[in-house]
């Protein structure tokens, strides 16, 4: 036995070395794969030429940023985006808390089932959500673009707010709740004075994450816009189709900057990995 094991040791060590080498290379590749398009977009956003020329640009300027910020069509999109996302996230956060509260009370089996149901939009393709919602809303006579967009973004954001809320509530130490109730606080007061305040950061973090998701959406929003209510990403896409210029690169950079800012705030609050992890693995 032991005689057979020892010659295999150096071989195994070599395999381990190879594996860690390969996984290191994969990490670097993944990193490049994610960053290169972003880097190119960044370069292009500062291109001083007025046409699409070979990279790198000979000189840099802020012209595309100026074009973006002075374009009334895109600015209208940005305004709508901010309003739609804010409205949707506020409603989604409230709905998240209400649902989580309810789920906390029903039996664990039901709670699991309902949670799975509420986060199921995560696994439905956004295009399907957008199209189905468009059909449904026209059926019931809702044609106002802003309302339709808010409805669509609710479906996008609610899974995130519910999961974040459930995870935060579940994360509150049970002995604290018991301590409170032994000190004379009934269930309602325990919830509002202990559970909720302690879960609040996690709930807010989930809402911020949901906001970022909502701000970036194209697929669902595309179906739900009308002539006056359209989100910024939708405006950028249609702008690009009409005449390709680099405003989209500048706008993308600003969106990226905005998202990074949100993520920094979020990280300050709880730590990104927690929210990402719980958002990306439904049920």
């Amino acid at each position, binding site marked *: 036995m032991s005689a057979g094991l020892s010659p295999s040791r150096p071989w195994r060590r070599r395999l381990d070395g190879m594996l860690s080498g390969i996984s290191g290379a994969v990490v670097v590749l993944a990193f490049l794969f994610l960053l290169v398009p972003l880097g190119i977009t960044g370069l292009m956003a500062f291109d001083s030429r007025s046409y699409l020329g070979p990279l790198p640009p000979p000189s840099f300027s802020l012209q595309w940023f100026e074009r973006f910020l002075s374009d009334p069509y895109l600015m209208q999109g940005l305004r709508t985006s901010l309003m739609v996302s804010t409205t949707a996230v506020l409603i989604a956060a409230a709905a998240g808390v209400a649902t989580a509260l309810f789920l906390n009370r029903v039996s664990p089996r039901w709670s699991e089932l309902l949670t799975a149901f509420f986060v199921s939009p995560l696994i439905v393709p956004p295009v399907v959500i957008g199209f189905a919602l468009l059909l449904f809303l026209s059926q019931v006579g809702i044609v106002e673009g802003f309302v339709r967009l808010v409805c669509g973004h609710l479906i996008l954001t609610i899974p995130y707010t519910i999961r974040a809320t459930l995870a935060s509530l579940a994360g509150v130490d049970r002995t604290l709740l018991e*301590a409170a109730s032994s*000190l004379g606080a009934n269930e309602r007061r325990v919830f509002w004075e202990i559970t909720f305040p302690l879960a609040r950061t996690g709930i807010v973090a989930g809402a911020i994450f949901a906001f970022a998701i909502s701000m970036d959406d194209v697929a669902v929003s595309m179906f739900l816009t009308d002539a006056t209510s359209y989100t910024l990403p939708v405006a950028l896409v249609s702008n690009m189709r009409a005449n390709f210029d680099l405003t989209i690169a500048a706008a993308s950079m600003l969106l990226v900057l905005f998202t990074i800012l949100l993520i920094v705030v979020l990280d300050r609050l709880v730590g990104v990995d927690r929210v990402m992890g719980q958002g990306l693995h439904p049920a």
Partner: protein
Amino acid sequence: MLEVRNVTKHFGATVAADAVSFTVAQGEIVSLLGPSGCGKTTTLRLIAGFERPDSGEIRIGGRDVTGTRPYERNVGLLFQHYALFPHMTVRDNVAYGLRHRGWPKAEIPDRVSAMLGLVKLQGLDARLPAKLSGGQQQRVALARALATEPAVVLLDEPLSALDAKLRHELRVEIKEILRSVGSTTIIVTHDQEEAMGMAARIIVMEKGRIRQVGSPDDIYWRPGNRFVAGFVGRSNWFVGRAAGAGGGSPTLSTLTTEDGFELRVAAPNGRAGAIYDVGIRPERLEIVSPGAAPAADETLIVGTVLDVSPLGAERHIVLRLPAGGQLTVIQPNRAAAAPGTGETVTVRARAADWMVLPREGESSGV
């Protein structure tokens, strides 16, 4: 004050509390002692109202509270990990129970200060719990638990998260505070020293059942069964068969061990031939000069020294007996007279010091 009557609680197939009955008098400190998983915490949680018993009754101050919610019972709790509200200051933590138990608003600040004074934490009232040491946090928790003058105070291993030295200091202090307040208290622990140090009465549990209730001395010197005897303190055990009645003295009898030793013990009331577990605490054994003649109530045991460990205040000496068993002797660690390894020594045991227990699981005729 507190009455637990025939309370049983199952978790699936495990019986966490099996027909548990005991009472705690007004102002008394009682300790629940037992190995891990024996149902100590469950018993406390039943009293606090976090668990419902399957059957039985719990009364606090004469009132049946069996079916009531935790906040409807006047019970103060101290948890192992303090369970302070992390988002509230020390002051707000201590005031929490006062606010919810309807103390007049105007009196709350004074009451909070008085409680913080009691646990020697004046001046820390604006701190958050995270900014306190473990010992300080447990003091805050104690102040919070006692502030509302609960009818019963329950402490679940309150010191086990602290280091040894602090644990001892705080134990003495908590005991003093509980006494001065006159709290009716149950303290759960699996540390026998803690149990004996804090409580006037100890309830020993095993597998959900109460095995003995008694004073620390009762539990240690007069254990009611082999489990209690084995759980509390160390002892040397033999198995002995009772010789026929008589033997010269009405108060003494002789038990013969498997190895043929004859042990003189205080007479058990069993019939001849009954089998007993016979044990003796190591500190009750005494090394005597060889060749001494035993008195009628003494047994002399000869053995070879296997190991001597000087453990600070005391010295543990392990002997090998001729028949192969071992015997531990504990003596005060004075400079003189430590036997050397390999030496043959004679040990004296007095009849009154033997714990004589009917063999468990065998009908002993008692």
